[in-house]
């Protein structure tokens, strides 16, 4: 058994052929290649099929509420910045239910990584449209097809200056692994939107479809060029895979808050500071 592998025979709740299987392998390989120990890695997740990911990784796990993996992950990081903290959930969880947190964690920039499994459909609740579902996709709630525009996570991320924005496709595991490794290593808030097809409820955005509608980021793309990144983000016919945007100049939230390497649970209340504080109310 290699690090991050769960014991043989662990029951996995995903359907056969689910895009989450290759992503599980990719993530574990990425963590190993980065030399991470399971004891230093925390995976926080929300609810949904994607959010079950940490159940199948032998590391610390915080499987919380639907849409709330980002604030939980941030709280963990602020309490102990020595930990490698990953928030992982699906497109419904991160872009829908928890959309507000994504916007505002971008402004803070803690050193955490958000991995979003994007299958353009709701799996766990059985086939309803997700924020990234294509217009016209027929589903149980919109029998005549989706009538709202899909959410463009990359465009939003670049516009919010999320300092590391990547996109991957589990159909290309080597590329996906490299992007995820770079995201986890990045010092700051990083987000990777990962195509991971749902083979049961999304019959239009299949492995084959993603293969036909993606291409690598052009060789001459400069990820530090925000305008160029935004232009790539708007390419929705042939979606670029790789590192779309990278801004190495943003200060970390932890540093701005003055958080040291000592975990908060080791902090002690200084008695002299306490007396000094009380004296201010005499």
């Amino acid at each position: 058994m290699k690090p991050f592998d769960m014991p043989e025979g662990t029951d996995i709740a995903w359907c056969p052929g689910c895009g989450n299987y290759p992503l599980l392998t990719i993530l574990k390989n990425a963590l190993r290649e980065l030399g991470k120990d399971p004891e230093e890695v925390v995976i926080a997740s929300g609810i949904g099929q994607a959010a079950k990911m940490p159940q199948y990784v032998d590391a610390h796990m915080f499987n919380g509420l639907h849409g709330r993996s980002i604030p939980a992950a941030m709280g963990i990081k602020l309490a102990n910045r020595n930990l490698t903290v990953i928030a992982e959930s699906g497109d419904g969880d991160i872009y829908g239910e928890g959309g507000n947190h994504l916007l505002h964690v971008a402004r803070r920039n803690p050193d955490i990584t958000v991995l979003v499994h994007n299958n353009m459909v709701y799996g766990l609740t059985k086939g309803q449209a997700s924020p990234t579902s294509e217009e016209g996709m027929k589903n149980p709630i919109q029998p005549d097809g989706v009538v709202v525009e899909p959410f463009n996570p990359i465009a939003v991320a670049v516009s919010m200056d999320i300092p590391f924005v990547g996109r991957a496709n589990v159909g290309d595991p080597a590329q996906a692994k490299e992007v995820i490794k770079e995201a986890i290593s990045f010092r700051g808030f990083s987000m990777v939107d990962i195509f991971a097809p749902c083979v049961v409820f999304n019959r239009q955005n299949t492995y084959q479809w993603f293969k036909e509608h993606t291409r690598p980021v052009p060789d001459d793309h400069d990820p530090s060029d925000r305008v160029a990144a935004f232009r790539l983000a708007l390419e929705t016919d042939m979606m670029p895979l790789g590192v779309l945007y990278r801004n190495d100049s943003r200060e970390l939230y932890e540093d701005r808050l003055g958080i040291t390497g000592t975990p908060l649970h080791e902090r002690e209340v200084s008695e002299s500071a306490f007396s000094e504080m009380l004296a201010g109310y005499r």
Partner: protein
Amino acid sequence: MSQHSKDVSIVVGGSAGQGVQTVEAALMKILKDAGYGVFACKEYMSRVRGGSNSVEIRVSSTRSPRRAYVRRIDFLFAMDAAAVPHLGWRIGPDTLVFAEAGQAGDVAPGRRIDTPILSFANEAGGSPLYANSVVLGVVLGILNVPFSGAESYLRRAFSRKGDDIVAKNIDAARKGYEFGKHTSFVEDIAVALSPSEDRKDDLLLDGTTALGIGAVAGGCDFISSYPMSPATGVLAFLAKEAKRFGIVVDQAEDEISAINAGLGASYAGARAMVTTSGGGFDLMQEGVSLSGIIETPIVIHIGQRPGPATGLPTRTEQGDLNLALHAGHGEFVRAIYAPGTVPEAVGVMQHAFETADRYQVPAFVLSDQYFLDSVATVDEGDLPRIPVARHISETDEGYLRYALTEDGLSSRGVPGYGKGLVCVDSDEHDENGRITESFEVRRVMMEKRWKRLEAMRESAILPSPSDNLDAAETAVVCWGSNRGAVEEALGRLGSVKLGGLHFSQVFPINPKVKKMLKGKEIVVVENNHTGQFADLLARELGVKVSRRILKSTGEPFSVEELMDELKLESKTKN
């Protein structure tokens, strides 16, 4: 003639932004330093400028301090024309109304003292801005407090603005002071409250600050919150103290984020809290439920205000006990505290952190606008301290976060401390924290999570009885912020039939309470419409509550109205 030997009730009324609070802060500090017991409470409208607000300052001796809101006004200072009509219902035949000539309107049945506040201000400083210092002076003159206190206060307060400004403020105050002395002579005002030299080192703390100090003392490492009146002050307090103590303060984008960030931090070992009011707390409820199933501590302060919805944003109520009691879907254990005094606020905040950590549950502290905004003098030695015990263990390989034990409490590990992995899950989970759908594991885990309630009951803080409770026929029960008003009303009624019992922990209730109430009629006083605590008491202890004294207008109980209500009570028993 106006004689005061127990206490004086001074009320200053004006519009927001006019400096009512500046006068309050100055008076409280000067009078405290002069050795008086002081208490202040305030009421204000939900606006940044304008409207009509007031502050009540009760000055008493430190030996028998008055710490509750009274309807009675001895001296009313009207800073504008709206103050008198706004406070008219509290003006009695003995009220002296100090107002600019022509600004007081009809003060009947009180007596008007034309007070040239603005001309003094203009004479001293050439600007109406000095009106606050004039009023300050008048009050001190009436109370016959040495002027040196005002002088040194104003010197400190305005030193950064230069000698000229200091001198003008002192001059304005002196003009007011002389006017006050003169008025005192002419009106035959006699204030004899005997200040104590030895109490000059007392602290002046409002409820907000007391809760903040309690949080610091309780080892609070982390707070994430979204501003909402009247609970924002605790967040601001910890933000102010963050650097000094190494506390992490995060202003959240919404209350949902706040409690989830708090739970994340707590999972990683921090003592975490959130502060909010009822409406904001509504958004946190799913997080409370999460705390319940992952057995991850969190302290939740709810500064109550009248609902439903936006209700009366700047007013007071005790309407959210049931909310705290039932918040979050599913069934799980919690503790709820509700302080009634400044020392209790410091104490129960520490208890909340200790209980949350020891029993791995959510712990609530319920306050309200009246409590948070009320200021009192307190002896530093009366502030309780509870050692910060982390209740965190280093993990070994194979660590199980939810290992089954006799008392249902598993050793709490945190990620990064030890060889073990710490897995928590909002799904029902096995001992290792991994998802399960087994009915048997579910049964065992539900029992595990509920077992701790017994120990929490036994260790719950006992309510504070009045000295005469044992022999009394009737127990007047209250909780949270009503303590001061009930105690004073009972004290002033002086009936042997009526005893008092105040709860600073409202859930769980210590089973010993049943004995304290045995054979007594129970009257419950609450600042809400239905008597939520009365229901809780009846349900938890199987006692019968014979009467509920309730108020949900948005105002606190005054001592007088409780005396009226309770007088009736002792008479019907005769």
